[in-house]
């Protein structure tokens, strides 16, 4: 067991590719990173784990040259640097798969992948050699297992497909170090498997990898070494042989997690929402039938682009439905806008938090109370005290880590931002809650809290539809699992039928025998 990050793991060949010493970054009110030292060896896969806000993304942004550290030095190729720039980072072979997608919807896939590094034709005008570009992109797409072509506009790709483009982009740099910041957070199972094998093949080519994920079992499977951050500081390093789910958790949160509480046995309540023959924009020809009952958590699994998010958007009134009907408590309802849905107690925790979930520039309190203002107001006038009190109550309830409820929401870590979105709805009384990837980018501790919250809601009689691409989560949390395939419900599994295999089979369109 290796107790220090300063000493390279025994047997690692040669000098480190990159070493950090005493690197720190402070934001007003938060120490994002505290005097961190670590080495990265060639051909090594480092798992980087930690709770939300532990400083993982901050560290990666420093390596990517996006932000400059306040102190410490970076040793790269024998040169000691105070900080990196984006250009020097790229040119020294550091490639990046960002946690938040950074693609250009107005450009096609090929343009995105080689942006900033286009092959040029001869001549002073710097014209793009489009044929060569296409040829260069094809093998990359094949490698990540993408089914779309090089000239597909990115605007028409789903979130997961966009993530594949991001990965292809990182692969396209002649990289010596590839950093994946939660690459699997929106990838379903099959794509995740492919990604893990890509990572292993990088290692075989002598390329270093830093792999950040909250899905600890994935880290367990690929990492040679795991580095654990807590509150901006490095709290431990686990060598290959010591890597284990429980050890990581213990270092991350400083204690062992209690075993997950067993699901209570219950008889499901009456049908809250009955969806019959509803068609969505992505699959207008595929009617969906589904029943969600009070007091149950219905998991909704499926592959990339199987149409789950689209269904959620229809139920929440964002998109129109192309036919079919929705019945709430046996009454036919028309949900024409999110407003209608909210008025009927149907709430959505969206998949794309930054775009649809929160206002990054608003204080936390104003985000939490946004959906409930008329209730908190008297005669349409706001009441600052009542607002703060309501927000504070939710902050404590959900354990949102922030200096105060008046902090800017954008400064929170991803996980805490997600809790803010939850807090927004929990202050109202939900009848039906739709969670779209509720724990995307959320650490294990917070995950368990959110599961606890969902269960508590269900126990209080709320009907819950949980869309998730995390197999563990789907099986661990749901009371029933519906599996979508190409826009239709391919099957519904009861608790005694749960298994990874059966979910996967339905997801790929095979009938379970």
């Amino acid at each position, binding site marked *: 067991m290796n107790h220090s990050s300063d000493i390279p793991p025994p047997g690692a060949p040669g000098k480190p590719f990159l070493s950090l010493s005493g690197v720190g970054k402070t934001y007003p009110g938060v120490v994002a990173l505290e005097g961190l030292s670590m080495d990265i060896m060639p051909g090594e896969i480092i798992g980087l784990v930690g709770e939300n806000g532990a400083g993982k993304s901050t560290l990666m942004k420093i390596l990517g040259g996006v932000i400059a550290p306040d102190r410490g030095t970076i040793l790269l190729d024998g040169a000691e640097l105070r900080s990196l720039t984006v250009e020097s980072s790229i040119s020294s072979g550091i490639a990046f798969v960002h946690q938040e997608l950074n693609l250009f919807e107005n450009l096609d896939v090929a343009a995105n992948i080689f942006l900033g590094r286009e092959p040029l034709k001869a001549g002073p005008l710097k014209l793009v050699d489009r044929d060569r570009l296409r040829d260069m992109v094809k093998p990359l797409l094949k490698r990540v297992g993408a089914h779309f072509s090089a000239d597909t506009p990115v605007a028409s790709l789903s979130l997961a497909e966009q993530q594949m483009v991001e990965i292809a982009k990182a692969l396209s740099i002649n990289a010596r170090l590839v950093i994946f910041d939660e690459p699997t957070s929106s990838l379903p199972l099959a794509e995740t498997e492919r990604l893990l094998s890509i990572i292993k093949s990088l290692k075989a080519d002598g390329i270093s990898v830093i792999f950040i994920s909250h899905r600890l079992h994935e880290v367990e499977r690929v990492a040679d070494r795991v580095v*654990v951050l807590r509150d901006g500081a490095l709290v431990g390093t686990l060598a290959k042989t010591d890597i284990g789910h429980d050890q990581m958790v213990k270092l991350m949160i400083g204690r062992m997690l209690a075993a997950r509480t067993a699901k209570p046995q219950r008889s499901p309540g009456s049908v809250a929402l009955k969806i019959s023959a509803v068609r969505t924009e992505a699959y207008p020809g595929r009617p969906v039938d589904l029943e969600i009952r009070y007091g149950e958590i219905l998991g909704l699994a499926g592959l990339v682009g199987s149409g789950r998010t689209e269904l959620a958007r229809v139920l929440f009134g964002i998109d129109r439905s192309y036919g079919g009907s929705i019945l709430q408590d046996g009454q036919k309802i028309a949900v024409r806008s999110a407003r209608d849905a909210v008025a009927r107690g149907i709430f959505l925790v969206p998949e794309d938090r930054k775009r649809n*979930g929160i206002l990054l520039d608003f204080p936390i309190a104003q985000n939490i109370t946004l959906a409930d203002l008329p209730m908190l107001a008297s005669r349409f006038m706001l009441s600052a005290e009542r607002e703060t009190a309501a927000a504070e109550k939710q902050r404590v309830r959900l354990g949102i880590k922030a200096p105060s409820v008046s902090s800017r929401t954008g400064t929170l870590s991803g996980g805490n931002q997600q809790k803010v979105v939850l807090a927004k709805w929990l202050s109202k009384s939900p009848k039906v809650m739709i969670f779209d990837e509720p724990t995307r980018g959320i650490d294990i501790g917070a995950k368990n809290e959110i599961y606890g919250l969902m269960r508590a809601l269900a126990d209080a009689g709320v009907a819950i539809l949980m869309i998730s691409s995390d197999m563990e989560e789907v099986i661990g949390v749901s009371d029933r699992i519906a599996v979508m395939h190409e826009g239709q419900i391919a099957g519904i599994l009861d608790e005694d039928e749960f298994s990874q295999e059966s979910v996967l089979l339905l997801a790929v369109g095979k009938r379970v025998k």
Partner: protein
Amino acid sequence: MIKKDLGLLLLIVVVGIVVAIINPRFLLPINLANTANLIGLFGILSIGQAYVIITGGIELSVGSLVALLGVLFVDFIAVQDMPWMLALPLILVLGAAIGAIHGWLITRLNLQPFVVTLCGLLIYRGAARFYTADGTAGFAFGQNFPDLEFITAGRFYGVPNTFIALVIISVVMWVVLHRSVFGRYLYAIGKNEEAARYSGIRTGRMVMSAYVICGLLTALAAIYFAMYTRSISPASHGQFYELYAIAAAVLGGFSLRGGEGSIVGVVLGTVLLQELQNLVNLLGIPSSLNFAVMGGVILIGVLVDQQWNAIRAHRRLISAARQTEARASDEGKLPVIANQD
């Protein structure tokens, strides 16, 4: 009142003192009243514009609307002999309706605010000119409307009624924007419309209301302007007023990206702009430089503001870094090693 507004107020006061020293007649009650009158006129326009800018939109047709509605108002009461008690609300309703149409095109048909209101700028100007066949709309000699004139162009203990109207409107609009649920929604929409919609806010309706408010205030200002000049040549009346309004909002700390700004700011912005115009005339600066002075001050204003913020943010970062560094060396190095079990 936030820091930015205080800075602007300070600037207004300093400029005022300097002008008063060079030409003490600046402080004559009559001069102050004249300037206050124009502050009232332009302030009402600017508050309307501010409501639209908050949502991330823009209203470029303000100047043309001032011309069109002014022409109609004067024509109604001076030529068509409509009682002004009828014409006034009619014009206000018309302004609101035009605002509603803009809002409808923007929210329901998803057109860009810049495009819709640019077309408005062209169309309303054309309509105004066509209506009078490019002639001037005005009152005949001796045509008087004492009540209307008192309300719109009169003074109350020496204070122009337009200024009093601005004060009342500012207070109401301040409460609506900064203290009401509607105002909060507008800020939320300006910051991130989609997230606002996902929170169950009827974003379309809110944005539309902002344009209606803008149309309404513009119509009111159009009536005031008409009664101030008492004559409207539709080809030039109100030209560029949208730029004045936008400039006042920008000076007052609004971001054209939406979601930022305050009513106090936009009113102070208007005050500064009118003070500058007054200054150019009082100090005998060539009128040709009037626009240039205005542009220069706006540019310097936003530059100072921007640099100020940048420096402050930088300072805060540096000091935060220092503090933790000090703390770290006090505590000694944190343990890098964690024990298992």
